[in-house]
């Protein structure tokens, strides 16, 4: 079985090595269609996202159509077909964060970064996504950047927070 440590080494791997690792993952999961979601999880861990070429590779290896793989992949918001930026910015739009102004923060993020939800800036520094309740309602509206939580954000704080990262 592929271990977590092996997946953690992906930063230093070449593309070819990543495909070899993914192939091993698929064999570990016995090429079963019912394991497709797990395989996609691992593929995203290895490549950071699941682009069309990786979808093709998985489909061929698991004897599925690309369309089938893409169908499952695009259903779940966890999976991404676009590369993530250096900083993954997520804003919570759960009920508490929403009523406390999460939507305005999101709009500010969109205009400052110049991208839509699910996209990455051209310089590959920021990507933007939306979450549904991260259990930090007391900190609403909450935002995370690479899993670090920023509490009670508002549109005026956005420039400063992002500026501190670059």
């Amino acid at each position, binding site marked *: 079985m592929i271990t977590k440590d092996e997946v953690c080494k992906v930063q230093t791997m070449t593309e070819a090595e990543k495909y070899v690792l993914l192939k091993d993952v698929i064999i570990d999961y016995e090429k079963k269609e019912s394991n497709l979601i797990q395989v996609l999880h691992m593929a995203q861990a290895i490549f950071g996202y699941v682009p069309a070429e990786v979808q093709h590779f998985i489909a061929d290896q698991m004897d599925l159509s690309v369309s089938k793989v893409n*169908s499952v992949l695009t259903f779940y918001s966890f999976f991404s077909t676009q590369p993530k930026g250096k900083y993954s910015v997520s804003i919570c739009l759960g009920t508490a964060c929403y009523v406390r102004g999460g939507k305005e923060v999101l709009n500010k993020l969109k205009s400052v970064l110049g991208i839509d939800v699910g996209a990455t800036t051209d310089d590959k520094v920021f990507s933007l996504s939306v979450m549904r309740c991260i259990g930090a309602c007391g900190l609403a509206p909450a935002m995370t950047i690479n899993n670090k939580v920023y509490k009670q954000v508002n549109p005026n704080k956005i420039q400063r927070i992002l500026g501190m990262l670059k």
Partner: protein
Amino acid sequence: MINLTINNKAIQVEEGTTIFEAAKHHNILIPHFCYMENVHQIGSCRICVVEVEGGRNLMASCATAVKEGMIVHTNSERVRNVRKVIYELMLSDHPKECLSCWRNQNCELQDLGNLIQISEFRYEGAKSKDIIDTSSPSIVRDSSKCILCRRCVTICNEIQGVGLMNPHHRGFSTFIGPSEDELLGESVCTNCGQCVLVCPVGALKEKDSTAITWEALYDKSKTVIVQTAPAVRAALGEVFGYELGTLVTGKMASALHELGFNYVFDTNFAADLTIMEEGSEFLERVKNAFTAPEKDAVLPMITSCSPGWIKFMEHRYPDQLSHLSSCKSPHMMLGALTKTYFAEKMNIDPANIFVVSVMPCTAKKFEITRPEMFNNGLADVDAVITTRELGRMIKDAGIDFRNLPDGEFDSPLGLSTGAADIFGTTGGVMEAALRTVYELVTGREFPAANLHIVPLEGLDRIKTADIKIENPLEAYSFLDGVTVKVAVTSGLKGAAILLDEIKKGISPYHFIEIMGCPGGCISGGGQPRPVNDAIRTKRLEAIYREDEGKIVRKSHENQDILLLYHDYLGVPLGHKSHELLHTIYTRRSKN
């Protein structure tokens, strides 16, 4: 047995029956939309919801099994209100361009709106999708009209095993089709058109070829020649209100003459020719297998008339392509002969001949674009129109189809035998081939009542037969006592089962017939809607009636075929045949 009450009627049905079926068997019709009996019953559209006493939510009757003591209401105030709301919500994301939609008045969404008395649209809002994919030569996908019923998903995955049509993304962003980066025309789509056949709205349709056909008909410099496939005559009548299974061969020939085609030929003629070529090819392979092992004859041989099946094979089983007969499909043969044999005979420049094939098939639209289907730079066939498209052209031309006299096909490519007629249905090509091959081998007529090989008929997925050869002619003495095993399947899932056997080296058969669409060409992707097993059976019976009505029912007894060999082709599998009537296949990628 289960006892329940539907609309205050006490009903007894077998366990496992759905509420929908129980109601139907007792003359209670529940409005429904995506339901297709035994094919698609997953409640995806929610139109068939009913109220079950004690249940909190309404239930989709097509996907809910009956329970003892259930009290069901199909027409309560709540059900009728909810049904309308569901319909209106569907419509809120559907363009209301009905007047210019090709499905106008032949649309299940319109029919449903009429049935449940919709008189207003209360919801208007954003439209979710606007992808129009015209990349395929066979099928156009207009996702703006898709109402996400998922029938095509079921057909493409469960029945055909192709797996191209799937839902992508979710919620309001959902669309159905190949994945985002894929185009139909560049995908593994086999062009079988079964998705087009089941689409209730205008989201999936055949690529129009009527416009170029009209253009050719109006072009005075062109000799425009039409040919019609065996299955068309058994279904075209449905477009003009005839009872299911009515043969309209004569009226169809008249209508084609009235449309202005210079010659009306019959693909059936080339079906007889296919039997001569394919039967000879089979006998040659068998002979080599039994007497010349060094030639590595490849058996089982598989029929090659169905272009949807061919493309499926090229994608999925590229290593098994040598099992395919090298014969072109009948209409391609006829096209090639029209631009050579016929052109020479009539002294017409083949460049000025425009050949139109009327086919029950959408995959034929792709087939004519294959580079192998060109001869001296000219396409064997210039346009393929489906049975539905022909129906539209006849109506558009103001031809009173029902009052036409019965016409005839033109000579010399119009005469056919009963063996050719049955090409239109599953099992037909095999039966036609065996009628000829058996006689060539033994010198005697095939020993079956009325020439029908009963185990190969009908709609079962895989059908097989054993034919024992006794006392053959001397040239085939090596076959004495041999049992020839044949198999027939229709629908690509069945094809995959037989091909997997071949791949594993455990296929017991010598000869296999495969048609891409379930039931064969009678329910091809270009046939009139709707299609279900009851309708397939009616069309199938019509095809066999056409066969039985012929005096000559064996391809090798078609006098015009014999004349063609005598005057032009020489012998089956000869040099000219190889040039005009045979083809090669292409290895394609799995995805």
